[in-house]
């Protein structure tokens, strides 16, 4: 195993990862004084312009928040994702995709428990006189957001109907809006695990206690956002995918949490109560509406000494949200399709959480790609998210948009398009007919096979393969002034 892979497996906290990133030139400290608004947003947006190489940015001089620190862009570039996966900067998106797809389902989870008294997250504890603004240097992420949001919080909860079941414990990323010194609202939908748990608690009058983890092991944010089965533990899954141990401890209110997180907020839902939430600039690049959302009362906060508040810029792409979840949106669709159709060779669902996806497939017969597309729409993520699908042949790299455009230009006939009207849609898709209902589009850009009478043109066969990939990298290195 090489040095970078060993380093990646040695990460157990946000601090470890920031140190690794800094050593590779992928984390910087912004010490010039900034205003919470609009400066933090402006710097984060400027960094997002470089999807390949943007560094994480740690702010340690924020007006009105002396001594407090916040970091954005931890997962904000492909180079940072590469380092998290133990691969060098400059690794292509296609290589990162196959790195993740190759880890799918074959590794063992390594979970260990740290006594509460020894867990770094419990170094400092606030149980009375709680004011979240004392601890979190929050700021308005987009100018018309309804308040100050925690945009990168991993929320852990136990199933209110089966609180002793480790597997039914849920960890997910939900947006949280600060609603006063010791309260916040949580936005979710009924089909998400947290939505199910809230509805079950309210139906049965059961308490719902949660722990909000901020500034976490960088593997968790990636994998907690991945749709997996309800009874699979996100902790076990993150550990398996990282090939590294994960240290847990207990929160003061009995929830399993990461022992090395920067900040953990313990809270209890106020049964049946709702407060106005939003708008919030969301991943399609548009604002959500204002809705009445459940409210949680903070009961305690634990944090490390000198904690780092981790946040994200999300809005009109490209943003950290896209690099954070893009590959882990693509990999499960690939794995699920391959079970039935081994002809599928890659899935690119990087765009707006998979609202547009590109799938490459070896056509078994004329029209076969359309069959695969319909199967993709019935995968767990596809049901709601895969709105526009472009099907290409296996000789087209779906991660290379120049090649995808070539396939669209030369292999698509207007009657190779399918529109499926009035299908389920993500409620925040602004193009929906009504929120939650919209049309799906399949473009078959694969080549013609018999019995299609048109036939394929005689193609030029430029050299491809690992030798050419290596030459591309050699050219880039020479261009950067690095000897081969």
């Amino acid at each position, binding site marked *: 195993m090489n040095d970078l892979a060993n380093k990646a497996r040695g990460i157990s906290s946000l601090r470890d990862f920031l140190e690794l990133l800094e050593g590779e030139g992928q984390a910087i400290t912004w010490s010039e004084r900034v205003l919470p608004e*609009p400066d933090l947003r402006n710097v984060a947006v400027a960094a997002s312009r470089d999807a390949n190489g943007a560094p994480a940015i740690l702010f340690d001089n924020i007006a009105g928040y*002396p001594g407090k620190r916040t970091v954005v862009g931890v997962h904000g570039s492909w180079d940072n994702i590469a380092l998290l996966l133990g691969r060098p900067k400059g690794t292509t998106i296609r290589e990162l995709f196959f790195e993740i797809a190759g880890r799918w389902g074959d590794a063992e989870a390594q979970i260990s428990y740290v006594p509460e008294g020894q867990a770094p997250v419990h170094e400092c504890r606030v149980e009375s006189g709680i004011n979240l603004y004392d601890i979190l240097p929050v700021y308005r992420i987009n*100018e018309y957001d*309804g*308040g100050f949001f925690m945009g990168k919080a991993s929320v852990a909860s136990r199933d209110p109907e089966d609180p002793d079941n480790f597997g039914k414990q849920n960890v997910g990323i939900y947006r949280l809006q600060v609603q006063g010194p010791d309260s916040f*609202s949580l936005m979710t939908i009924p089909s998400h695990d947290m939505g199910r748990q*809230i*509805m079950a608690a309210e139906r049965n009058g059961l308490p719902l206690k949660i722990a909000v983890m901020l500034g976490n092991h960088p593997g968790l944010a990636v994998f907690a956002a991945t749709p997996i089965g309800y009874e699979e533990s996100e902790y076990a899954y993150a550990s398996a995918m990282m090939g590294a141990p994960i240290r847990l401890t207990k929160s003061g209110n009995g929830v399993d949490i990461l022992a090395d997180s920067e900040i953990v907020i313990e809270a209890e839902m106020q049964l049946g109560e709702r407060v106005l939430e939003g*708008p919030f600039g969301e991943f399609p690049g548009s604002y959500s509406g204002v*809705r009445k959302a459940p409210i949680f009362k903070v009961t305690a906060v634990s944090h490390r000494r000198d904690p780092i508040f981790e946040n994200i810029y999300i809005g009109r792409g490209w943003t950290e949200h896209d690099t954070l979840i893009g590959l882990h949106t693509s990999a499960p669709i690939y794995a699920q399709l391959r079970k039935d159709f081994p002809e599928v060779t890659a899935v690119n669902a990087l765009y707006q959480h998979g609202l547009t996806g590109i799938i490459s497939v070896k056509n078994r017969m004329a029209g076969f790609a359309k069959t695969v597309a319909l199967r993709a729409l019935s995968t767990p993520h596809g049901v709601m998210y895969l709105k526009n699908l472009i099907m290409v042949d296996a000789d087209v790299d779906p991660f290379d948009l120049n090649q995808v455009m070539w396939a669209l230009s030369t292999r698509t006939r207007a009657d190779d398009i399918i529109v499926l009207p009035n299908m389920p849609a993500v409620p925040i898709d602004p193009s929906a007919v009504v929120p939650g209902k919209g049309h799906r589009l399949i473009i078959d850009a694969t080549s013609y096979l018999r019995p299609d009478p048109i036939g394929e043109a005689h193609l030029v066969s430029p050299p491809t393969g690992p030798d050419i990939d290596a030459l591309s990298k050699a050219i880039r290195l020479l261009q950067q002034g690095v000897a081969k």
Partner: protein
Amino acid sequence: MSETLCPRCSSTGAIEDYQGREDNIVVWTIYRCVTCCFSWRDSEPASTIGAGVRSADFAVDAGNLDRYPKILQQ
């Protein structure tokens, strides 16, 4: 009741939630509207908190809060 006007719904009665201080001098103050739940910092740009400057598209109608849907209804 404070006389501070909410930039989003124009109600009065906003609560002061926090003061950012440096060397014990107040740098900014965070307010919260009890009617529409909007939170703001008084140091923010006028495009966010300025009456008449904020986009009307993002106003909340304090007289008709029933129009905002409740999520997770049984």
